[in-house]
């Protein structure tokens, strides 16, 4: 399940970081310029794709720094809410 989730996130991000094989633990903020529009699209993607709402206090960039961190956020969100992904 987790690998499938990571693959979906990676596929989404590949649109922004072309010609780069993004690793699960790679810091996307260090990789290039992450502007607010990309940030918003990423938040909207995660909420829409995995069916939960990211609260204000979860918007911390640490949660979005790597694919691994995003996956961990999804894990926390969906297991708490009992949503099947």
């Amino acid at each position, binding site marked *: 399940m987790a690998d499938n989730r990571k693959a979906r996130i990676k596929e989404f991000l590949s*649109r922004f970081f072309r010609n780069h094989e993004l690793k699960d633990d790679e810091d996307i903020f260090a990789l290039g*310029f992450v*502007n*607010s*529009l990309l*940030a918003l699209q990423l938040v909207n993607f995660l909420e829409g794709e995995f069916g939960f709402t990211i609260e*204000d206090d979860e*918007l*911390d960039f640490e949660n*979005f720094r790597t694919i691994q961190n995003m996956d961990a956020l999804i894990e926390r969100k969906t297991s708490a809410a009992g949503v099947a992904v």
Partner: protein
Amino acid sequence: MTTPQIAIAHGQSETEKKTVKVLVWDLDNTLWNGTLLESDSVQLRDGVRAALDTLDKRGILHSIASKNDHDLAMEKLREFGLERYFLYPQINWNSKAAGVRSIATSINIGLDAVAFIDDEPYEREEVKHAMPEIAVFDSSELDSLADRTEFIPAFITDDSARRREMYLADVERKRAEEQFIGPSEEFLATLGMEFTIARAQEEDLKRAEELTVRTHQLNTTGYTYSFEELNAFRASPNHLLLIAGLTDKFGSYGKIGLTLVEKNPEVWTIKLFLMSCRVMSRGVGTIFMNHLLGLARDAGVALQAEFLSNNRNRMMLITYKMGGFREVSRDGDFIVLQHDLDRIQPRPDWIDVEIVD
């Protein structure tokens, strides 16, 4: 027709009225007399040209929602020399409510800033029913429009008078963007953008005041300040009032960003940080924010930012948080954030940034 009757008919007090940012016109028997599909010799109605011009100079945009043959109607507008007044004209056989909604989306403004004028009660009713926020007018009310309070913006600046041109440039940009295949950064690189950040001068203050009043989505706190207050901040050694402008190969966007920083010996606080919606997809807000991070780091102070949610400005909270700000306190919708300034993204290479001190 006199204005007071209309005001009562709409059941709103003067203070409740929102300023109109775009007026959507019907064509047959509203813009011109007659029905175009029945007769090619329709005549422009008296007062139409004057109303278009007067409102345009005030920075109010025009558009069209008409059930008509698109090519025929556009040809007629060109004949009258009026086609460049209208942004995103919706001339087709769809419902006018759909047309009006599409115009508001394309221009990226709230429905409560839209007015609609049509001679047909059915069409007015349909639009009003679908979108109660919209002010609707009978074509017989044309001559009184320019005198109505909602058509008199609080500010008329250089940017207002050029607003239509700037939006027309946006139409060109969108077309270019739709035709471009590739990631958005590569598209941005084709625009030749120049972003300028400068201390606000006295001549910028009307525009600054206008931005604080007009901007809701890309606004961190929604604090509004009067001309006098802004002028005091401009002169104050304890404040930093910066205004940002953007141009690209299609033309100028005008002054599109504003920030107010309160400087205390140990801590600077961003009281207000806003960007015009027209530059939402240009990535310049983050560049503006990163400039403040750099200034605070160089000054050796901590940098805090206030955020006040209005339910429409979540994008700015995302901008702050994804930009490295962390929440330090919260009181209901009011949040104070702080940046530890240890990581500041370098500027992207697809834009020229000029800092005017």
